[in-house]
């Protein structure tokens, strides 16, 4: 290992503070754990120590669920608003509410996700971008205009892929149903839970400019209304 090697890659000379931050768009770039950047150093250290303790326990028990629960707890704490945070860009005291008009078992229902799933032959802008590039260009995405992709409900799950620079897409790539439940919608229609399905579902990567999204919204709502649906299932990531 050379003396001038990057400390964030080799760990040589790297502080713990640098280490924990490196998971968030840094040298370690693991979006599952980018929340460590938002924790105090002490809390991040306690999180890792707890996980290692539970890993040791799992050698004997084979049960990794305590580690997963610890990670979920830490993620929740990491994302929780902090006193020093900027106030949210949008905050409301109340919201519009469309009363339900029919039973779900008699309703036509659509699906919209912010997961960034799309059909392989309908690659949204920037077309052809890889997941690694999406992660590298997250700042650009957060200033950009989102594309609302259409995914027909009859699409084969094998024809659906995903790209999003803001979260770890591993599960969403293995099984789109974790955030775009296209197969589950079919199953709930078959068993009678849902009356009917919209012909087309929608998806966009939610890591986008909120102002530009709001400017697109009226046109998006018109496209969605053309589906003649009663209700919409929304799945943000």
């Amino acid at each position, binding site marked *: 290992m050379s003396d001038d090697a990057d400390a964030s890659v080799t760990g040589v000379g790297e502080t713990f503070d640098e280490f924990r931050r490196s998971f968030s768009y840094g040298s370690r770039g693991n979006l599952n754990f980018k929340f460590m950047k938002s924790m105090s150093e002490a809390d991040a250290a306690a999180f890792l120590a707890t996980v290692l303790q539970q890993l040791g326990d799992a050698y004997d028990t084979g049960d990794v669920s305590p580690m997963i629960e610890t990670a979920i707890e830490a993620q929740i704490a990491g994302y929780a608003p902090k006193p020093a945070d900027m106030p949210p860009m949008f905050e409301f005291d*109340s919201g519009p509410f469309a009363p339900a008009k029919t039973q779900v078992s008699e309703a036509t229902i659509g699906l919209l996700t912010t997961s960034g799933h799309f059909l392989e032959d309908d690659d949204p802008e920037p077309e052809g971008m890889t997941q690694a590039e999406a992660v590298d260009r997250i700042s650009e995405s957060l200033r950009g205009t989102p594309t609302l992709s259409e995914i027909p409900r009859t699409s084969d799950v094998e024809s659906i892929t995903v790209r999003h620079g803001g979260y770890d897409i*591993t599960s969403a790539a*293995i099984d789109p149903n*974790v*955030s775009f439940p296209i197969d589950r919608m079919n199953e709930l229609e078959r068993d009678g839970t849902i009356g009917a399905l919209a012909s087309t579902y929608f998806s966009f990567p939610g890591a986008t400019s909120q102002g530009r999204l709001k400017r697109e919204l009226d046109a998006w709502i018109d496209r969605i209304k053309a589906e003649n649906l009663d209700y919409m299932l*929304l*799945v*943000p990531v």
Partner: protein
Amino acid sequence: MSVGHVARGLEEAGIATTTIMVEAFRHRAEQMVVPRAVITRFPMGRPLGAPHDTDRHLDVMRMAFSLLETATESGTIVSYPQAYRVQTA
């Protein structure tokens, strides 16, 4: 936050919405006064559960759809009671 804008737009257009999201973003649901939401205590990026955990996905969705029939005001946010299931198979 993105989905909050979409939810508000759809409700204004007369389309009732129900949302499934992870606990880490509960504050976003509250800030945006999302009309109806089920909050799952799952890792970010897996709001319905683990890959191929079909029963869990369906259970979460049924809870979300039930809100369409029971919620009477915007900001009806409920917690899904089960933990993230670990795939052992």
